[in-house]
C-alpha cells in the first residue's frame, strides 16, 4: 500500500480505537446507571437504596399474586430464584402481567423491605409461538412430568 494511504489507515484505526476505549471507560463507570432495574438478589443484599425512586425487575413468583377485592391493589412477589422481593401496586396492570412472567416495577423500597410500586411494566421474552403449538408443548410437558 502507498505509504500515505497506510498513514491514513493508521489514523482511521486510531480514531476507532480511541473512541472504543473512551466509550468503554464511560460505560464501565456508569454501569450501575445503565442497568434499568435492580434484581431481587441485589435488593436482598442491600445494594438498592431505600426510600428513593428505583426499579426492581424479575419474575412474578407462581401463586404469589393477591388481588384486593375492594380496590385495584395487587400484591405479588418478584423473584430471580435467588431472592424474593414483595411488591404492592395499585393501578391497572399491563395485559401480559401474569404469574411466571417477567416484570419491571418502578417505585420505592420502604424500610420494612416492601417495594411500593407506582408503575408496573411487563417484560416479555424472545420466544414466539403460535397458541396451539404452545398448548401442545404444555400438554406434552404435563404427560412427561410425573
Amino acid at each position, binding site marked *: 500500500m502507498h505509504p500515505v494511504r497506510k498513514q491514513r489507515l493508521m489514523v*482511521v484505526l486510531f480514531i476507532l480505537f480511541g473512541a472504543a476505549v473512551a466509550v468503554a471507560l464511560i*460505560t464501565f463507570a456508569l454501569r450501575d446507571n445503565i*442497568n*434499568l432495574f435492580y434484581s431481587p438478589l441485589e435488593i436482598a443484599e442491600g445494594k438498592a437504596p431505600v426510600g428513593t425512586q428505583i426499579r426492581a425487575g424479575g419474575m412474578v413468583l407462581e401463586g404469589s399474586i393477591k388481588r384486593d377485592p375492594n380496590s385495584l391493589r395487587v400484591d405479588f412477589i418478584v423473584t430471580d430464584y435467588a431472592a424474593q422481593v414483595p411488591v404492592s401496586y395499585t393501578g391497572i*396492570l*399491563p395485559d401480559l402481567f401474569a404469574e411466571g412472567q417477567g416484570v419491571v416495577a418502578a417505585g420505592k423500597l420502604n424500610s420494612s423491605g416492601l417495594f411500593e410500586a407506582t408503575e408496573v411494566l411487563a417484560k*416479555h421474552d424472545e420466544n414466539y409461538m*403460535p*397458541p396451539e403449538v404452545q398448548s401442545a408443548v404444555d400438554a406434552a410437558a404435563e404427560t412427561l412430568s410425573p
Partner: protein
Amino acid sequence: MWQFFHKLGSPRWFYEISGRWLPWLALLTAALLLTGAVWGLAYAPPDFKQGNSFRIIYFHVPASAVSMACYMVMAMAGAVSLIWRMKLAEVVMKCCAPIGASITFIALVSGAIWGKPTWGTWWVWDARITSVLVLFFLYLGVLALYEAFDNKEAAGKACAVLSLVGCVNIPIIYWSVEWWYSLHQPATIKFTEQSSMHPDMLQPLLVMIAGFYCFFAVALLLYTRSEILFRERNTKWVRALVEKSVG
C-alpha cells in the same frame, strides 16, 4: 480486483451500471416487501402471549437490523473516502445518512407503538432503546455536519470521522440487552443457535428482513445517482444525458 476497485471509483461507470440494476432490484424489493407484509400480517399465526400485536415484529426487527447495517455501510464508506480519497465512497457515505435516519425512525416508532400494548409503556430509558436513539442522533449529526460546512471536501472528512467514532455504538446496541438489565428482550434470531421463534412466524420475518435490505440498496442507489448527477453536472457525459432527456 484492483481494476474493479478503480472502475467503482468512476462515477460515470457507477451511474451506468446502477441504472441497469435498479429496475430489477426495485422489482425484487417490492415483491419481497409485499409478500412478507401480507404473509406476516394476515397469514402468520398470532403469538400465544402477545396475540396479534406481535405482528409489529415484521416491521420493527427488519428496520432495526437495517438501521445498524446502514450505519456500518456509512462508516466503511467514510473510512474508504478518508484512506483512498475515493469520491464515490464519500457520496455513498453522505447518502446513507438520510436513509439510515428514516429507517432508525421506523425502528424507534414501531418499538414505541409495540411497547404500549405489551410492556405497558411507550418509552423507557433502558440501554437498548437509548442506544438506538443515539444511533438516530448520529445519523442526524452526520446530515447536519455536512450541511454546516461550506467547503464540501472538509464536510466529507468531518462526516467520515464522525461516522467512524459513532461505530462504537453498533456493538453497544447489539449486546446492550445482554450486558445490562433492560426491559427489551434479547435477540430472537441468533446466528449461532436456533432462533427462538416458530418457523411459521420466522419465515415471513426473514422475507421482510431481506425486503428491507433490498429497499436500503434501492434507496441508496437512487440517492447516490442523483448526487453523482449534481456533482458531475459540468462533465461531458452528464451534459449528453441532459441533452438526451430533452427528446
